[in-house]
């Protein structure tokens, strides 16, 4: 293609001659490199590559377990964003009566209601339920209190609508309520809540539409139980 025919007349300082000289030098260098590589046995090369690989692995911590990001801790009144929801725990109350919560304590057994007040905003573009039937919920009923196995009953704090739909960007105050025994919790107790986080996915072939998968604990909140007399 660009080879100049050898032996062509080259008057004066011909650029093609300079190129030829350069190509010759490169060929010489390449030959030298090839000969020196031939001097090294193949097994050495393989061992060397393996050693380099091991060294790099060791540099990144070897077989030691990778550090896991610590679960963030948020305070009462602080907003956590997870599962495309903004969740702000407002307070935890221990009540004798259910109020607008959707649980029904047995008064004769002295049962009481532990209610978590929480502000929630759905930041996704379509309405979403605040509770699911699944044990491992990505939404509001995925909020748990450490030590209680049950999921909470979710209702609106204002009019008591049960498991309300969360409309996009419309803030709502919800109540999460558990029935607890008379001596399970006391005024001033510290409890730990876990807030859910998950990954949004869109169904491809079998599942249709949006769903939230890979549910995990997104944050923990430490709150103080506030005993409310009467109400």
């Amino acid at each position, binding site marked *: 293609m660009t080879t100049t025919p050898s032996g062509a007349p080259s008057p004066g300082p011909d650029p093609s001659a300079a190129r030829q000289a350069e190509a010759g030098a490169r060929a010489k260098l390449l030959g030298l490199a090839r000969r020196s590589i031939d001097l090294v046995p193949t097994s050495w090369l393989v061992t060397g590559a393996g050693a380099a690989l091991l060294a790099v692995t060791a540099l990144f911590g070897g077989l030691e377990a990778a550090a896991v990001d610590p679960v963030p801790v948020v305070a009462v009144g602080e907003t956590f964003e997870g599962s495309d929801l903004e969740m702000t725990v407002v307070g935890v109350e221990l009540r004798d009566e259910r109020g607008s919560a959707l649980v029904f304590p047995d008064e004769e057994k002295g049962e009481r209601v532990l209610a978590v007040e929480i502000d929630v905003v759905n930041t996704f*573009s*379509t*309405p979403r339920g605040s509770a699911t039937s699944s044990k491992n919920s990505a939404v509001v009923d995925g909020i748990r209190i450490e030590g209680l196995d049950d999921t909470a009953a979710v209702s*609106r704090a*204002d*009019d008591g*609508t049960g498991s*309300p*739909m969360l*409309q*996009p*960007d*419309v803030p709502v105050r919800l109540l999460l309520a558990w029935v607890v025994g008379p001596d399970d919790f006391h005024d001033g107790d510290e409890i730990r809540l876990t807030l859910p986080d998950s990954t949004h996915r869109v169904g491809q072939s079998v599942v*249709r*539409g949006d769903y939230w998968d890979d549910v995990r604990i997104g944050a923990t909140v430490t709150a103080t139980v506030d005993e409310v007399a009467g109400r």
Partner: protein
Amino acid sequence: MKSKVLVWTLTAVLLAGAWGLSKATLSDDATIAPFRTEAEIGEPALARNLEVTITDVRLARSVRDAEGWTADGNWLVVDLQAASVVTQEGSTLRLAELVVSERTFSATDRGTTFAGQRLITGVPRAGSLTFELPDDALDGPATLRLGLTTGFSGEVLLDGVIELPLVLDELPFEGEAVLQENGWAR
């Protein structure tokens, strides 16, 4: 040289054709998409098993239902009459949503409204639907969509959907809107 030009031109044409085809192909959902019927306020609109007459659409600062429930906020209130046409099976008005640009809102589940109303064949029921909206969704175009959902999917597939185009900032604004009691249309 000539054959090279020909080959490259042909390649370009085929690539452009393939790109165009990929753009012209309908989405996977197109085979089960709903059939749209555009409605007008005051006029009956028909979509297979659903006949709806939207009588009034307005915005309000607060709503009150017939049972005394009230709530403040930004509300869009829709008065309507609806009946099923062919069968009462699956004739529950489950799809009632308002699409405002990128966001979709469903009719509120609070209070007592027409949301989830059982429709009767040939005898219209009347009531009000209301939508709770955030502050920044009160202007611009919006679409009200009504339909009978298919199975448990929560959406309408291969069936009719009645759509009412709206311009939110042209709607009348009320202080308090009183919702119609669910009942027979008069």
